[in-house]
């Protein structure tokens, strides 16, 4: 009799113990797990990610016992440094958040071993629904340390309000902006037409040199250093230096978006996600305004170069933590990338969704009539990029972030020095050679 009762009670007892060890029991709605979250979506605008986080907290999070607290908003450039400082425990740097979005360079700098593996919490059948290349980007040492949320590319945003006037006066058209040769020519013409204004800006200067060198068949990196022996890189860089010294390149220390809205430049190569940050008008020094219409084109390429376009976009990372926090983060990541959440978020921010089906539908769609003019214009170009260009994944390695920072700072400082001494007129080949040599010295200096 007793043995019979034991045979009934013990399985129930063991099942209860096993269930208490299962994943869902890691969360309890009554005692929610709190996740601090740093992100980059809409820092200086009306952040769609903040709204998404709030919706998560009020629905899935409330049901399962997760509260996501956004404790920092910045951009993909700015987020890197405080994260690295926090990870290194630098004085005054604060604490590393539970989850954050960043580029692989940050993960490599902090050390991939300090991050949890998303694959431990997201089953393989679920992972199959994501674009393989996006997942692959987050794989380091066989571990999924970064999880895709949204991806972007680089496009040329043109202030159509001014360009149409410029075009009418000069005969230059948007087709001239497809190649860098056309861009430099248009920049020269615009400089004269506008009374000395810069024509374009490029948000991440190293990307200009990198993508164009590679598109021309050159090697931009030699090991973990910039390959100054590449003739393609020398050509690409000197053309930019020439435009900069001639006053055709906007040297303002801001994103192209801001420079365009104050009329400092006419166009800029920037992330597709920039569409979120454009205001609908320009402001002039006399405090009058003009509506700002945008045209979006593929980023220019050299005429004989391969059609490459950068595929970028930060991913979600979680430093190793408690099982409950890691599992809660995976619930949040899966919720964010559900099609009903991910597609509207992507379309409102200029990103691309990360699941196979949604990605294909967005990049192949030709009709975005239900969206505003900016979004329609952007996704028409995304459609063109998908059709005619090859997506190029940025190479990331340990020290990439520091290299990129140094490249941009040294180049900017060099241009300013040379503009101060030789600016305002077209530089000779000797000057460009001297600038290139000096840039190499700056970059090779420890």
């Amino acid at each position, binding site marked *: *009799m*007793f043995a019979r009762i034991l045979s009934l009670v013990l399985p129930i007892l063991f099942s209860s113990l096993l269930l208490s060890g299962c994943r869902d029991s890691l969360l309890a709605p*009554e*005692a*929610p797990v*709190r996740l601090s979250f*740093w992100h980059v979506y*809409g*820092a*200086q*605008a*009306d*952040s769609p990610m*903040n709204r998404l*986080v*709030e919706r998560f*907290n*009020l629905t899935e999070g409330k049901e399962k016992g997760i*509260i*996501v*607290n*956004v*404790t*920092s*908003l*910045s951009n993909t450039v*700015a987020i890197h440094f*405080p994260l690295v400082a*926090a990870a290194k425990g630098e*004085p*005054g*740097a*604060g*604490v590393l958040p539970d989850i954050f979005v960043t580029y692989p360079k940050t993960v490599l700098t902090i050390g991939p071993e300090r991050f949890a593996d998303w694959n431990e919490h997201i089953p393989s059948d679920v992972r199959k629904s994501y674009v393989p290349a996006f997942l692959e980007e987050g794989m380091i040492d066989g571990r999924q340390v970064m999880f895709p949320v949204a991806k972007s590319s680089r496009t040329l945003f043109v202030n159509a309000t001014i360009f149409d006037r410029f075009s009418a006066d000069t005969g230059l058209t948007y087709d001239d902006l497809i190649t860098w040769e056309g861009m430099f020519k248009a920049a020269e013409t615009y400089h004269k037409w506008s009374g000395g204004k810069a024509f374009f800006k490029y948000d991440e200067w190293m990307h200009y040199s990198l993508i164009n060198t590679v598109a021309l068949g050159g090697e931009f990196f030699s090991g973990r250093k910039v390959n100054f022996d590449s003739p393609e890189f020398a050509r690409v860089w000197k053309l930019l230096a020439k435009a900069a010294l001639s006053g055709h390149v906007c040297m*303002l*220390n*801001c*994103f192209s*978006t*801001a*420079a365009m*809205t*104050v009329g*400092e430049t006419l166009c800029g190569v920037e992330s597709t996600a920039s569409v979120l*940050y454009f*205001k609908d008008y320009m*402001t002039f*020094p*006399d*405090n*009058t305004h003009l509506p700002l219409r945008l045209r979006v084109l593929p980023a220019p390429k050299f005429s004989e170069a391969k059609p490459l376009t950068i595929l970028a976009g930060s991913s979600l990372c979680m430093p190793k933590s408690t099982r409950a926090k890691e599992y809660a983060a995976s619930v949040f990541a899966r919720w964010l990338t559900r099609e009903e959440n991910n597609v509207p978020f992507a379309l409102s921010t200029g990103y691309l969704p990360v699941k196979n089906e949604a990605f294909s539908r967005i990049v192949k769609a030709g009709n975005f009539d239900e969206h505003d003019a900016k979004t329609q214009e952007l996704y028409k170009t995304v459609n063109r990029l998908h059709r005619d260009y090859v997506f190029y994944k940025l190479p990331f390695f340990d020290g990439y972030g520091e290299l990129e920072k140094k490249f941009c700072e040294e180049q900017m400082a060099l241009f300013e020095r040379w503009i101060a001494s030789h600016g305002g007129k077209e530089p000779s080949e000797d000057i460009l050679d001297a600038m290139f040599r000096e840039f190499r010295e700056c970059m090779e200096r420890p």
Partner: protein
Amino acid sequence: MKFNEFFEYHRKLYRLLRSQDKNLLSFKGRMHVYILVLSAILLGCTFFLLSFLEVLPSEKNDVANQLEVLLEDYDRSIATSFSKTARHGILLSQRLSAAFEQELADRNADFADLSDNPKLIEALEERSYSILEQTLQLADCSGVFVVLDATVNTSAPASRLSRAGVYLKIANINNSDPIDPILLFARGMHEVGSRHKHDFHNRWELEFSISRLGMFETLKNSAVPDLSRCFFFSPRINFEGTWENMIMLGVPLMSRNGTFMGICGLEINSLYFRLAFPLEAHSLPPTTGLLACREGALLAPAKGLNSGAYADNFSSSFSASLHTERKEKLNRYVSPQESFVGLEHEITLSPLDGANRWVVALLIPESAHMFIIHMKYMKMAIFGAVFLVLAYFLSYGISRRFINPILERIDAITAGKAERTEIPEIDDLIEYLSREEQAAPHVAEVQADMTGYTTFLKNIETLSKAERAVFNLYVKGLSAPEIAEELHVTIHTVKSHNRRIYAKLNISSRKELLLFINMMKPEDKLQD
């Protein structure tokens, strides 16, 4: 075997308790039930006494006490921080006013000449820049600004509400007080921003719109030279086109001759507030802190800022005013989305608070509060249940240990093996029985009691099958242990049957049973 005995005992106990024939309850069973009832009464009395003396923890009191302590700290840190912010604002105003007067004097200009004079405005903005930057580095804030009572172009549309000035904001707020703040140029002349090489904010504008800066007119109308009596914290405003909500401190800019030159101040945005005043109360459910405005029975969180678990990431919960129901321990705050319980303190932020009654409040969701109360009761119930289960087994053990020796002695007596025991009461009983036996009336006298015998005979039919089996074996002359062996049951079962047989046949002893059996005719004995 012991387990079988245990279960058999409880099966019978259960049946007896159900039959409500308490007379059939064995001595051991009675003792078991009595000890159990005593334990339950003791447990109940303990709970009652602890509760009466308020020794028993009440979760409502606990939460209220913890919230009160937390609120004291929260209130103090906000009051101190806002007071320091106000002090920085006053110093900023004094430094800017002096710098502007100096600049105007250097240029031999008057403040009244400022409008429509972009060069002069640019000069004043330039002059203010480093002062603003220094203030931003030193003060507890997320932004700093100066608004001049002038515009670059009085003929521009909406110029009546447009005012020149400079607005710097911190871009890298990821802890409350960034050591190395990255500045964004949010308002001001383009040339000034470019010169200082700070990024332009994506929502940059040339000038401020005072329609969105309501305190400009308030301060203009109430400006007095004593700035410590003339500063103002605005209710929350939104930085147009962004997620940022903020409270602004405004201080008037006054020249030495009393001319109102504009206002300056500091900004505390929602993210900065959340990081500067974190709420980490691990012993409490997720708690949210509010700096809000009280409007009668309504608490308006949307006019202030908040921090803690349900901070800005639950803005819809705090977008509507919360109706407040005052309670003895914890107030109840009800919004269309959710109900909270919590506490609040009134706080004075500035001498010009006026219609804005600021309060600092701490709220926890009512559902979470109820859950912890239920959990507490659940714990007490589990404790009580465990206590009773233990008491049950303990009382079973005690009654068994205490009664078994007595029963064994009684069996020995009934088997005619009476001998002295170590239990005085039993020894007394044995002595008494032996005296009684000696003094017992003769069998013949007993035979005279035919009435009892008649009842005995008549009631034999009422015996159950099991009882009849035992009875028949007595008829055959077997003793109780022999009957137990014959029927493959325990001696306790036989005794139990005996008690029922005695009751049904209206006899009081084994002796009487054997007497009547002897008196039975052989044909009566053979009946089954």
